[in-house]
């Protein structure tokens, strides 16, 4: 018999990812309003490094979470909690969210890799450059990063709505991701 709820490590990683993703959205809206960088104006330096570092760490955390998710899968939801079409939609939405998190993080890194600014991993070491500074490529990946982030935000809104729907029904679904 399988555990009905998710593995505890998956639960902790899920909520850590949630807080990090919202922090990245909210802080990015603020940091894009800071003055463009120059030798004397360094307002953007710390927030941008932090943004990149959290984004790169998210990729690692998501891989760990997915590994644990598939190693210790929860039992399928009961039919009284979720109709088959809801279950299928939820699976599709989750695949889209995971895919988009990867894409948003990787496109952000590729956009940054085409600027003159290096990426220092948690202020410990600098990642080797994978490309020369190129404004066109920076803009290309930057736009993909931005638009995919908006789509991710829309999907998160759907995901949150689903969670609230199950909390109103007070069924078993909501407790699958609330196991401390």
């Amino acid at each position, binding site marked *: 018999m399988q*555990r*009905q*709820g998710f593995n505890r490590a998956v639960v902790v990683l899920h909520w850590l990812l949630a807080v990090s993703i919202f922090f990245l959205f909210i802080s990015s809206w603020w940091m894009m309003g*800071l003055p*463009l960088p120059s030798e004397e*104006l360094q307002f953007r330096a710390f927030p941008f490094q932090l943004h990149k570092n959290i984004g790169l760490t998210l990729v690692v955390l998501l891989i760990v979470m997915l590994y644990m998710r598939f190693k210790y899968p929860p039992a399928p939801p009961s039919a009284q909690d979720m109709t088959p079409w809801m279950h299928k939609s939820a699976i599709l939405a989750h695949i889209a969210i995971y895919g988009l998190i990867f894409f948003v993080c990787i496109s952000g890194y590729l956009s940054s890799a085409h600027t003159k600014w290096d990426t220092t991993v948690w202020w410990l070491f600098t990642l080797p450059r994978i490309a020369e500074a190129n404004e066109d490529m920076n803009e290309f990946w930057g736009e993909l990063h931005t638009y995919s982030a908006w789509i991710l935000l829309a999907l998160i809104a759907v995901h949150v709505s689903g969670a609230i729907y199950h909390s109103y029904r007070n069924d078993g679904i909501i407790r699958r991701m609330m*196991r401390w």
Partner: protein
Amino acid sequence: MVSNDLNNSSTPNWASILGVVAIMLGVFLTAMHGTELMKQSVMTSNMPVSGVMPEADCPLGELDEEGITLEQCEFLVDYVQGIAQSTPDWFPDTMMKLALVGTLLAFASVIIGGALVNYTPWSTTAAIAVFIGLAAVDLLQFAAVVMTGPLLRDMYLWSILLWFLLHLMLLVGAIAGRHTEAARIQRDVA
């Protein structure tokens, strides 16, 4: 073999709803307080000692990349300077301390929300304590911003007031739930 029955739960409906709302708002508020902490730290550590802001550096390529005009680029520097001039000396430190406490309490509300959904014996008392703490942080932030000036009031007050009302609703919800459960237990005993 591990099994946990999630369906036959004794969680009352109010606790399930309150728990999930506390989690959602807690996730969002942790991110907001975290951003505020970084905002104050970045603004204070990057302001020139002289207080005079350097000229904006707006190369055409960068403007195109950012999707802004030259005037907007120059305004970004003026805007930061305007905020710096409107900020009393004591304000960044106060906001950082409150934002730090707020971040911790907001993250605690995510954990407490999960406890409410599972309806653990300590969840309601802990929820009341955390919601009181969050409402107190809102009130202190509100008082701090009121003592600044029109620019910072315009930036902060509406959002702090909204969060205060949300925390008040969560607090009253937790208290009402506790009273409902106490009445139910009394009825069962009688």
